[in-house]
Structure formats: C-alpha cells, structure tokens
C-alpha cells in the first residue's frame, strides 16, 4: 500500500511567484490494484505521481510505502512501512530503479540508440550480468510484439511501438509499481484498448498500477479499481 499524508508540492517556494501543484493530498493507494487519477490539465495528477515515484520531494507531508521497496533497499527493513520523503537521494534512486517503472506521456525514449539499448538503460548502473539482462529485455520486447525492431533505432518507430518500448523499459527491472502518465494521450482508440489489455496482464501479475488520464477509455475501464479525481492540486472525489 502507498499512503500519502497531507502532501504539498510548491514550486518556486519563497520566490515572488510560488505555485502549489499539489495541495494537502491525503490518500491510501492499495497494492496490486489499478488506480486512475483523472482531472484537467494542471490539476496536479502528474506532480503527485512524480512525488510517489521518488522523482521529486514534497514541500511538506509524508509518503509511506508499505512493503513495496523491500527489493530496492535490502539492507533496510523495508518490508513494513517506509517513509520515503526524508530518505537520502541515493536511496530514492534505488527505489526509483527497483520499485517503480515509469511510462511517460512523451515516452521519453533516448533518441539515436536502438530499441534494445533503450530498454537496457535502467539496468546499466546495476552492474548485472549483461547477457542475463539482455535475454530478459529480448523476452519482454518479444512478448510486446517488438521482436523485429530489437536493433532498430527508436526514431523510426510509430507512436504505438514507441509506447510499447517505453513499457518494456519500465518493466525491465521487474518493478512492483508501474506509473503511467497520460499513456493514451498520443494513441488512437484501438491502440488505447491494446494498452489497457497490457495493463490487465500486469494487474493479473500482481503489479500496482497508477495511471493519470483524462481519457474515458482508461478511467471508465472495468480494470480501474479506483478513480481519484483531482482539481487545483486537491483530491475532489474518490470512486
């Protein structure tokens, strides 16, 4: 479970034009479920997920991971609640690497290198056996129908293919939580349905799924266990 208590994120705090993107959010997110965050642009959905995913620290408030970061920090007793907002940068990086897999709205693939290299990027700092991780990456890409694009440059992929590469990359370290930011924003309806099909498989595999979206294909999906609606940085409804 992920627990947020009075989480606030203010950009440019202390300057002339501070902007509060997340304003006192308190929330419990169950593990192994699909939670959708919906709301208009600027409502704070993406910022909230970057805080949960250890990509930024909240200005105030606490975030606890319950039993999700045990793989990331084996030397800590992280099987129970782990308060992440006060952890040193090194620990946050380890959690980001092991616990979370990110699928970005713009996919954020590194241009100029191959599909396989992009998928392997999260494994480079781990120093794992390259043959083992490559075999894992190839298997993941094959399962996503990208076997023939392994050595192709990502610049030549279609939108749907690029997203599947981003999904393979998010899964390469076998994270417990998958965070997807507006994953269907650049996909047509058929590809959006395909994406939800993949999410269904990950949910069955026990992954915790956090998706921001204002696409009805996502938030009206039967897969969504919970829909959290946000506006102006606050949670306005939970269903």
């Amino acid at each position: 479970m992920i627990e947020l208590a009075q989480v606030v994120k203010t950009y440019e705090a202390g300057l002339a034009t501070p902007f509060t993107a997340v304003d006192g959010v308190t929330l419990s997110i169950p593990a192994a479920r699909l939670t959708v965050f919906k709301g208009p642009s600027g409502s704070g959905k993406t910022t909230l997920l970057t805080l949960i995913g250890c990509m930024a620290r909240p200005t105030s408030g606490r975030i606890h991971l319950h039993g999700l970061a045990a793989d990331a920090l084996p030397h800590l007793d992280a099987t129970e609640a782990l308060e992440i907002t006060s952890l040193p940068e090194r620990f946050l990086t380890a959690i980001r690497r092991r616990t979370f897999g990110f699928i970005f709205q713009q996919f954020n693939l590194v241009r100029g290198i191959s599909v396989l290299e992009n998928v392997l990027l999260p494994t480079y700092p781990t120093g794992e056996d390259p043959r083992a991780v490559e075999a894992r990456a190839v298997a993941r890409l094959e399962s996503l129908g990208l076997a023939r694009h392994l050595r192709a440059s990502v610049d030549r992929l279609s939108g749907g293919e690029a997203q599947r590469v981003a999904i393979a990359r998010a899964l390469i370290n076998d994270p417990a939580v998958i965070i997807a930011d507006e994953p269907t924003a650049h996909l047509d309806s058929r590809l959006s349905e395909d994406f939800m099909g993949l999410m269904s498989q990950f949910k069955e595999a026990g992954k915790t799924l956090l998706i921001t979206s204002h696409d009805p294909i996502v938030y009206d999906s039967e897969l969504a266990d919970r829909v959290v609606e946000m506006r102006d940085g606050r949670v306005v409804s939970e269903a």
Partner: protein
Amino acid sequence: MRPPLQRYRNILDFALSSLLRRKGRNLALLSVYALVVFVIASLVFFVQALKHEARELLVQAPDMVVQRLVAGRHDPMPLAQAEAIRAIRGVAEVQPRLWGYYYDPVYGGNLTVMATEDADLAPDAIWIGAGVARTMRVKESDMVPLRGYDGQSTLFSIQKVLAESSELVSADLVLMAPKDVRALFHFPENLATDLAVQAGNPRELPTIAAKIVELYPDSRPILKAELLRTYEAVFDWRGGLMVVVLASAVLSFIIFAWDKATGLSAEERKEIGVLKSLGWESADVLLLKFWEGTVISVTAYLSGVLLAYAHVFFFSASLFEHALKGWSVLFPRYRLVPALDGYQLTVLFFLTVLPYTAATLVPSWRAATVDPDAAMRS
C-alpha cells in the same frame, strides 16, 4: 565480471554510443581539438629536438674555443699562439681547428668543411654528413666536385656517409684531410680557423679564459656553457615567437571548446532527467559525462601528438620550418632525430585533457543534481 566493474563498463559503452549519436558535433570538436594539440605538440617536439641536437653537438665540442677578432672581425689564429696557450697552467690540450663554410651554388646550401686527422680517411677522399648526401643525392664511392678559391673544381671521392645519430651535428659536414682544406680555401700553413682548448678541470675554464685574454687581447674565448645557453635561448625564443602567433588560434579553440563543453542542450538536459528517472544516480550521470569528455579529449590528445610526431620527425616540421629554422635556406635540409620529453608531454596532457574534461562535468553536475522531474520539465 563483478557488478561495480560491469557498471563502469556499461556506462562506458553507453558513453561511446552517445558520442556516436552526435557524430557531426563530436567530429567537429575532435578535429579542432586535435588540431590545436597537433600545433602545440609540434612546437614542443620541434624545440625539444633542436635542443637535443644542440646538446649532442656540444657533447662533442671542446671545453673552450678560442677565436681571434680583428676589430670585431673573425680572423684566423696564428698557430704559434696555440703553443703559448698550451703552456697556461690547467690547459690539458690545445688543438688547432681548420674549417670553413663552403657555399654550394648548385644546391643553394652552406656546407661546413672541416679538417680531420683521422687515419682512416683515404687520400683525396671525404666523409660527408647524411644531409649533404641527401641534398646532393650522392652515396658512398660517388665523386663530388668542389670548387676551390680559384674557381677550379677538385673531385673528391665519398669514402663514408656519417651516421645519423644527430643530424644537426653532421648534416652539413664535409670532412677532409687538412691539406685538402688548405688547398680548397687557400688557407696559409701557419694559421688555423680557431683553437679547441680542453681543460684538466672544467671549473678552471673561466680562469684560463681570463689568462688567454690577458695574453692575447685580440682573442675571444667561448666556453661550452655559453654556447649551450645561446642555443637554448635561440630555440626558446623561436618557440616563444610561435606561441605568440598561435595564441589567437589556441584562444579561439578554448572559447569554442568551452562553449561546446559547458553548454548542455535542452535535449541533453532532458536526457539526464530521463536517465535519473530510470534509476541512474547523479554519480552515474557524472561518470557518463566523464567518459564522454575523456574519450573526446584523450582521442584528440593522442591523435594530435601522433600527427605532430609524424609532422616533426618524418616531415621535418614542414609547416613551421621557415619560422623556426630561420637559416634553413643556407642549410642542407636535415631530419630531426626524435627526442621526446616526458615532462612536456605530461604538461601538455594536463593542459589539454583535464580542463576539457572538467568543463564537461560542471554543467552535467548541475543538471544531474536536480530532481529528475525538474530536469525533464526544463
């Protein structure tokens, strides 16, 4: 491979792949960078090689040379003075030397013709330096005509081409019997060009020199140390002159490299954010940028130094020789013998590789230490 080593290798692989992704930009940078290293290294090699040649030359030089000056004009020494100088306390040996410059109008170069008492030298034969052989395109057993003071040519057979341990010593040298030198230059029997003086104890040389001047006020003793200082000063001065000329090019490069190295493009900044979001630590990003900077700067350094080596020692520094070898028109073309100074190469390494690598790290460090979401939004 152990995980930490594998981590280094993975990041190095990715650094190489990143450099290839920006081929155009990196090749342009590498070319300019290597060119600057090439120019500076050529200069360093050239001056070092000339100094080395000068030192080689002076190793064989006598402790002191005594010339005669008549109102400032160099004049042959009477042989009788050699006996008087030999009698000075502390003088071990006095050897009259017979030599002179011979201008060859066909090849447009000055040769140094010198007498030798070497018993191996056959009658009517000469020994020549490698530079002379190259300039005249002759080899052992060939005949060479030399035109004497009266315009009459005398044929000499080449008995030996001198070894190339130091071309500055022997490049323009023609050794012949004393009688042939006297005949060629119409040199009187009772005179020598100068006197080579050896002292029993080199510390006594200044005292001996003072006594010679006292004995013969028109004489001019030149110590070996003075010759060495003069050579070094000339080569340093010439090298310094080139540095001034090249300074503007080097400064332009520094500005260019600084701009390329310190300015991260929006794409690079975003890439750092992506890597951090994927679980790269700031240290991993810095290692990546360190490898990128190191590969560029070490490659530029090595290629610049190798090209400079070839330029100076295989092509006789053809780009600089007119600036550095001011007397080359009157001198047979000679090849420099390689003389590398590890200290200077190390200084060059630290002056070229370290600043660039450091310059690439600073902006990357700034980008790598912010939250990944900020780097991605920027």
